[in-house]
């Protein structure tokens, strides 16, 4: 399950993050911005992730930190799909 999630994330990252290196060479906790992802590309990545996983990231999750590594993205998706109650409690 987790492996599937990570490989799907990596597929979307490879397609949309426009990294200056091959995503396969990066570890799950490597910083995608340090690997060349621009702010503009990160928006496209977020849109593609919403589409691929059929979810919507709420505004509070739309920060650089939530999308800066494969692990961070997996945690965000896990929070939205797994523990929906926790993510609703923080709405301001």
């Amino acid at each position, binding site marked *: 399950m987790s492996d599937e999630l990570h490989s799907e994330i990596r597929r979307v990252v490879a397609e949309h993050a426009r990294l200056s290196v091959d995503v396969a060479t990066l570890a799950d906790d490597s910083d995608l*911005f340090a690997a060349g*992802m621009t*702010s503009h590309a990160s928006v496209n990545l977020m849109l593609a992730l919403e589409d691929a996983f059929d979810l919507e990231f709420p505004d509070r999750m739309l920060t650089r930190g939530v999308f800066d590594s494969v692990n961070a993205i997996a945690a965000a998706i896990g929070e939205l799909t797994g523990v929906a109650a926790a993510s609703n409690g923080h709405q301001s």
Partner: protein
Amino acid sequence: MAVESDRTLLADVARIAAEVAAQAADDVDRDARFPIEAITALREAHALSAAVPEELGGGGATLEAIARCCFELGRCCSSAAMVFAMHQIQVITIARHLDGAPWFESYLRRLATEQRLVASVTSEIGTGGDMGRSIAAVTEEEHDVRAFEKKAPTVSYGAHADDLFTTVRRHVDAEPGDQVLVLSTSGQAELEPTGEWNTLGMRGTCSPGFIVRARFAPEQILAAPFSTVMNQSLVPVSHILWSHVWLGVATEAFERARAFVRSSARQRPGEPLPAAHRLSTVMAELTLLRSEVAQGLQDFASDDEDGGRERLMTMASILRFNNLKLAASEHTPRVCEGALEVIGILGYRNDGPYSVGRHLRDSLSARLMVANERIHATDAALLLIAKEA
């Protein structure tokens, strides 16, 4: 306590604005020279360290108080106000992100004692005006010596600043967006001018291009990543303080139009006065501008408290403070133009008490300093994904 010191600061700065900055404003504008009298008076009043925390020897002023100072100075001399605002942006940014670093703590103490003026070197030739990317990088010269060389198209008051706060790539192999901030002090940096500063407005900010070369110690690099510093402090605080300067400029243009209308009305009491109607529409425009500027400041204060600084990292927050800049920079020239139409030829003249040419020219810089087109492009991208209005 904080309130009391804020009050003293405000009284000092309002006095300096009216008695010093206003007197020199036309001269500063005509000769495109640095507003040295105002900055010297601000130094003497210890206003350059107003935003340094009290425990580091500063005034511990709130952002509200600093913003109000920018407004007061903006009414009297836009250039002096913008120099003051830009300096405070650097000080506030350092204070918010030094994270206990001994070098930066002692730097702020020194700034407070010596009333040092800090300029920023963020723009760079070749980055297309994108502050989030750098070409220049920190290089390792020898043990404990770092250096950079940066080609900046503008450095506001570069030749008059004591110290420089510069964005550069973290190291020579770093991506353009992997930036850090370096604080170099006088003697460590060399500025080679690459042109003159002869502009339509904001002439006293003296912001020509420079090639900046600096050698410094590793601890002069702020540890916090620039992307965090940019979203949590540099951009929102810049937009808040700039917009207060612009509101000051617009308010002064409006007040000159009001004084003109009042004087006309006194000469012909009871007669119809078309200029009074036009003044009323300018006032409506100014009211909108004032509300947005005040709301922007308030939203920053509550974002800063509520969600900690995390909320300032969200796209909703980035959009919010970008919109403050867009609204304030677009409305300010409109108010100045409206004031000119009310006053007519006496406003168009460069002399006399109803002249608003300087205000209009200065206000036109607002849309260009970080071009609104670029901000709209950023916002357009963020709007694709952000959900809140």
